[in-house]
């Protein structure tokens, strides 16, 4: 993945990095449209997109990019709305809440902070890596391990026509975001444009598996039209699946309040298959109902199987979360901005539930959601600058940067103020969320999976690591989780930049699409040997050193150069 737009659930924020997309020209046009999109001004974004489009190709490109913002905005909404989404966010919250006591005990006991923390629970990994940690660290590690177990169980797959499709909660959220994205394109630009955009993404099979899987499954169970063309008529056909997709994401997550402590029989993947099989039994009756009737029938099945309708599940989840929040408010060791952020998140959930209570179809019907609700969904944006910038953006505050003497730069900003009117669905407290973005979130990520993540930037993890080291903590990484995977995203480079020719960053030779290799900034951090390659290229000595610290951009290299690099430098596969 080349990071462009991503929803980061650890901070409930929308990261965006325009480095690649503005390389192909028309930077001002793209920036105007996308900024309006990020600010929730859909009508303005659509107007500029059409009015100022230099040509059809650029118009389609900007529509697709804009629709990716809508996709991420829908994720933000669903991570507040669904009990599955809230459960996923609380996995971070639990760590944030325990962070102060965890760090205090680790420092007092001179115990190691181990990344990822569940390595401490495994006798084999513990002995092999000679891990020395504290009991309280292991207690929180157990909670992380439990979440990983849940995630594994939920990522069930089904094989249709030789392709594997994931059915779990995350796949369901991707499906809902994709439906919203395409509905919004159809609603604002027309159905012909929607079909064109669907054909643009490179690697269509992967996209289908990740975003369109529900069509295959819906067709397999006879709930969606079996026509071959159905995939290209997405918006006409998916309605009968929507009640099932939504109802699958409202599970019980509060220990004994759930069906079992291990979440058996109530994880999103199980719920989805159970519901679709039950609907299959009454398919004719179901398909003859309108969306409201279908929603009621799905709720009747939920009530019979799990004891609650979707609304009852949400009410119970909110009630339990409220009790948890009250407990947290009384804990003296919890960082104040964590308490405040949790409270704001909880209140936003209550606001969303009140919309749902008034009329569930406002959320379930994509056309209504896109027109009535999406314009008010404003996740906080984080503007990322992987090259590092000395500029201070007006109206934005730094959340990630570096300063040592005269060497100062910024990697990421959030708006100084966010959320606007009371009608918006947003997390507005930039001070609380800024602290989470710059410290709590990266530390939690290190604790969950070391440095093995899809990162938006990279320095967020290293800065958090350096802060901990500077405070005297002893850090230990499991080497198997020390670095993100190195993947060649060259196809997306040409796609995002709109280019067909590029220049090799090492030999300066010409590279033509589809040739070339994108070296991630992590490659230069694997070892001193690799770092020297960049240090030399940046001019060596102090100037080169600071340029190296600063620059977290990708390097584009030709085939010959990448082969040489593989021969002489440390290569992670």
């Amino acid at each position, binding site marked *: *993945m*080349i*990071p*462009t*737009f*991503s*929803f*980061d*659930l650890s901070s409930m924020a929308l990261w965006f990095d325009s480095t690649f997309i503005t390389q192909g020209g028309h930077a001002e046009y793209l920036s105007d449209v996308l900024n309006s999109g990020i600010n929730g001004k859909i009508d303005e974004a659509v107007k500029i997109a059409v009015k100022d489009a230099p040509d059809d190709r650029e118009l389609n490109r900007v529509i*697709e*990019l804009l629709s*990716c*913002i809508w*996709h*991420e905005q829908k*994720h933000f909404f669903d991570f507040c709305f669904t009990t599955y989404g809230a459960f996923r966010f609380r*996995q971070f919250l639990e760590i944030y809440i325990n962070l102060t006591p965890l760090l205090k005990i680790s420092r007092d006991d001179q115990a190691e902070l181990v990344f990822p923390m*569940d390595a401490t629970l*495994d*006798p*084999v*990994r513990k002995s*092999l*890596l000679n891990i020395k940690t504290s009991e309280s660290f292991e207690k929180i590690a157990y909670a992380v391990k439990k979440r*990983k177990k849940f*995630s*594994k169980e939920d990522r069930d*797959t089904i094989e249709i026509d030789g392709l*594997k*499709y*994931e059915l779990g909660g995350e796949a369901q*959220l*991707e499906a809902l*975001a*994709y439906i919203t*994205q395409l509905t919004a394109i159809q609603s604002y630009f027309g159905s012909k444009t929607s079909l064109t955009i669907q054909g643009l*993404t490179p*690697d269509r099979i*992967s996209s289908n598996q*990740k*975003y369109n899987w529900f069509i295959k499954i819906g067709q397999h169970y006879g709930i969606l039209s079996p026509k071959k063309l159905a995939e290209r008529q997405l918006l006409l056909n998916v309605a009968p699946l929507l009640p099932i997709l939504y109802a699958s994401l409202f599970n019980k997550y509060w220990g004994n309040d759930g069906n079992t402590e291990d979440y058996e029989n109530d994880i999103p993947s199980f719920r989805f298959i159970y519901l679709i099989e039950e609907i299959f039994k009454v398919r004719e009756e179901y398909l003859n109902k309108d969306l409201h009737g279908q929603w009621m029938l799905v709720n009747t099945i939920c009530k019979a199987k799990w004891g609650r309708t979707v609304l009852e599940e949400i009410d119970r989840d909110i009630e339990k979360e409220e009790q948890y929040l009250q407990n947290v408010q009384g804990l003296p060791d919890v960082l104040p901005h964590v308490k405040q952020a949790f409270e704001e998140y909880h209140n936003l959930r209550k606001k969303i539930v009140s919309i749902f209570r008034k009329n569930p179809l406002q959320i379930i019907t994509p056309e209504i959601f896109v027109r009535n609700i999406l314009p008010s969904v404003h996740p906080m944006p984080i503007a990322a600058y992987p090259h590092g910038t000395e500029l201070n953006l007006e109206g934005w505050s730094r959340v990630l940067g570096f300063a040592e003497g005269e060497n100062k730069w910024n990697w990421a900003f959030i708006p100084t103020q966010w959320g606007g009117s009371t009608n918006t669905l947003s997390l507005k407290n930039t001070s609380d969320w800024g602290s989470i973005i710059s410290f709590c979130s990266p530390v*939690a*990520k290190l604790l*969950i*999976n070391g440095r*093995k*993540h*899809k990162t*938006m930037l990279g320095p967020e993890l290293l800065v958090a690591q350096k802060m901990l080291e500077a405070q005297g903590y002893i850090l230990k990484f499991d*080497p*198997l*989780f*020390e*670095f993100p995977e190195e*993947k060649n*995203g060259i196809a*997306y480079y040409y796609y*995002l930049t709109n280019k067909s020719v590029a220049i090799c960053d090492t030999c300066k030779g010409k590279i033509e699409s589809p040739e070339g290799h994108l070296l991630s900034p992590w490659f230069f951090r694997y070892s001193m040997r690799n770092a020297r390659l960049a240090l030399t290229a940046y001019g060596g000595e102090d100037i080169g050193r600071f340029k190296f610290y600063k620059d977290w951009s990708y390097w584009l290299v030709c085939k010959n150069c990448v082969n040489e690099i593989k021969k002489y430098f440390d290569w*992670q*596969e």
Partner: protein
Amino acid sequence: MNQLAISIEGSQNIIDELNKSIVSNEIEKSEPVQKDSLADPLDAPLGADEIKGIIEIITLIFKGGTALMGFWAALKPILIAHPKEVIVVRDPKSGKRVASLNKDSTEKDIQNLFTK
């Protein structure tokens, strides 16, 4: 490799089967762990990643003279049963890839892991 320990990375099916098949007292096993992060951001269809299913890692410590043979006896039929799959062998102390194994791998490839 200095230690008689390896980490095996492969699809969930292969690693779970291997975990069940290794019953020797001379091999210590870690629990299989997912390689993917729960904390990964959710990206839009601009850069759809390939769907690979769950990739897991298991670490093994060989403690006795016949452990290696026991390991190979457990692994070989699994690789043959999954002819399209490749597993990656890593040094658990450095994370570095030391070999790839597939249905065509031989006992000698396994021995080489410890003589390199």
